[in-house]
């Protein structure tokens, strides 16, 4: 009933070689680089602060660095004329952070996008001067603080401001984002607020170090 096909040693060799070649070809590895098709810029950061005890005590501070057509900072440098906060002592403020891309028409709301990508972004706030350990490392080498913060930072009494980030991302262990915050002021003092947006793709762990800086801004703060 059954017939068998006998292969010569040469035929077996070539059949084996063909099979191995086929299997090797089937296991081919692939590698692809997928570049970004669009990249929004960030030109403007605003802090909108509202006194929790006095709703009419609302103010907005703006730090802005416009860009030229090539995406480079304009030669005149950042506009820090409106990067000023005047806060009352021993008060609590609800603070909303805004980010804009003014290179686009109409202006693009980057903060909304950051909120969507909260799991890989984090804002850090550093009141300066401070007697506490720095949350954001001080500039070293050729780096400088963003204007209007002087580099090096002159010694002085600490700015009595405590910042608490109140929003959280959706990582398995939710981590702060920094779009909404609470500022609590102490006794009268003056100084600066350094704000940095960190981009921490697959790295965000609540600390400052991992990732890279997307935006770096400074504000002059007076508590009186």
């Amino acid at each position, binding site marked *: 009933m059954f017939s068998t096909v006998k292969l010569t040693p040469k035929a077996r060799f070539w059949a084996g070689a063909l099979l191995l070649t086929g299997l090797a070809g*089937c296991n081919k590895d692939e590698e692809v*680089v*997928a570049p970004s098709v669009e990249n929004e810029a960030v030109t403007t950061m605003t802090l909108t602060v509202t006194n929790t005890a006095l709703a009419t005590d609302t103010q907005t501070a703006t730090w802005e660095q416009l860009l030229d057509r090539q995406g480079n900072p304009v030669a005149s440098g950042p506009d820090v004329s409106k990067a000023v906060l005047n806060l009352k002592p021993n008060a609590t403020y609800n603070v909303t952070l805004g980010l804009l891309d003014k290179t686009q028409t109409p202006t693009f709301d980057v903060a909304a996008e950051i909120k969507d990508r909260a799991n890989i972004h984090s804002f850090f706030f550093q009141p300066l001067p401070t007697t506490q350990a720095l949350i954001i490392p001080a500039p070293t080498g050729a780096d400088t603080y963003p204007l209007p913060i002087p580099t090096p930072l002159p010694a002085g009494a600490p700015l009595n401001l405590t910042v608490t980030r109140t929003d959280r991302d*959706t990582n398995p262990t939710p981590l702060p984002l920094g779009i909404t915050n609470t500022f609590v002021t102490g006794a009268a003092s003056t100084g600066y607020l350094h704000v940095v947006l960190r981009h921490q793709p*697959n*790295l965000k762990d609540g600390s400052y170090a991992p990732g890279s800086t997307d935006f770096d801004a400074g504000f002059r703060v007076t508590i009186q």
Partner: protein
Amino acid sequence: MKVNLLLLSAGLTLPLAGLAQSSPNKSYFGINAGASFATGNFRATDAGNSASGFAKTGFTVALDGAHFFHGGIVGLAGQVAFSDNGRLLANDLAKLGDAYTEAFDVDATTLRARGRYRRLTALVGPTLLFGGDKLKVEVRGLAGINQMLGTPELTVQLEDDPTNNFTQKSSRSLTFGYSAGLGLHYALGERLGLVARTDFMGSSPVTIKNDNRNNTTGRFIEKQPVTSFNTTLGLAFTLGS
């Protein structure tokens, strides 16, 4: 898919509906080979859907058999099958890469893939074989184990930090498997027959492990559904007198 199965069932069954069993069914064993068409999310190529498997049409090879009690139409069937549903190709990686680049908001991602969807299934279950001496139809439903021999391993490198890679590991998990299908037996001789089969095969979702995945962003898969529609042609050898 359900409509296709119904039409196929009807197409195979109706011509034989009038045929009575004219001789006792003999137990048989057989070997089949053919195409394995990945279906559903297993086949899907939407990078935004974490369940998309990007599986392809591949091949399947099966050893099967059945024992019929007292020569009746009811029997117990078993099947051991190897199936291959391909690998991730360059255009799949391009889609996935665009999705990761967008999700992680990075300038670029580099994706590397290796390995294929390969699985071994061992299933048993009831079968019905009816028809004439020359042509018979078999309907069976089987259940058992699905042993993944591998799934594509995908490594994603985010360009912001070349040391920041994460990996969707190849899976070798063991899951519950099942199949349902029809077979058409054509007797070539007293003990040898030709068998054409069509089976829907599936398994409970396969567990996928991920290395160095720190943030919940972008495509993140931990359970991969595996379903396919297999069509095969083979030989069956009957046993007994």
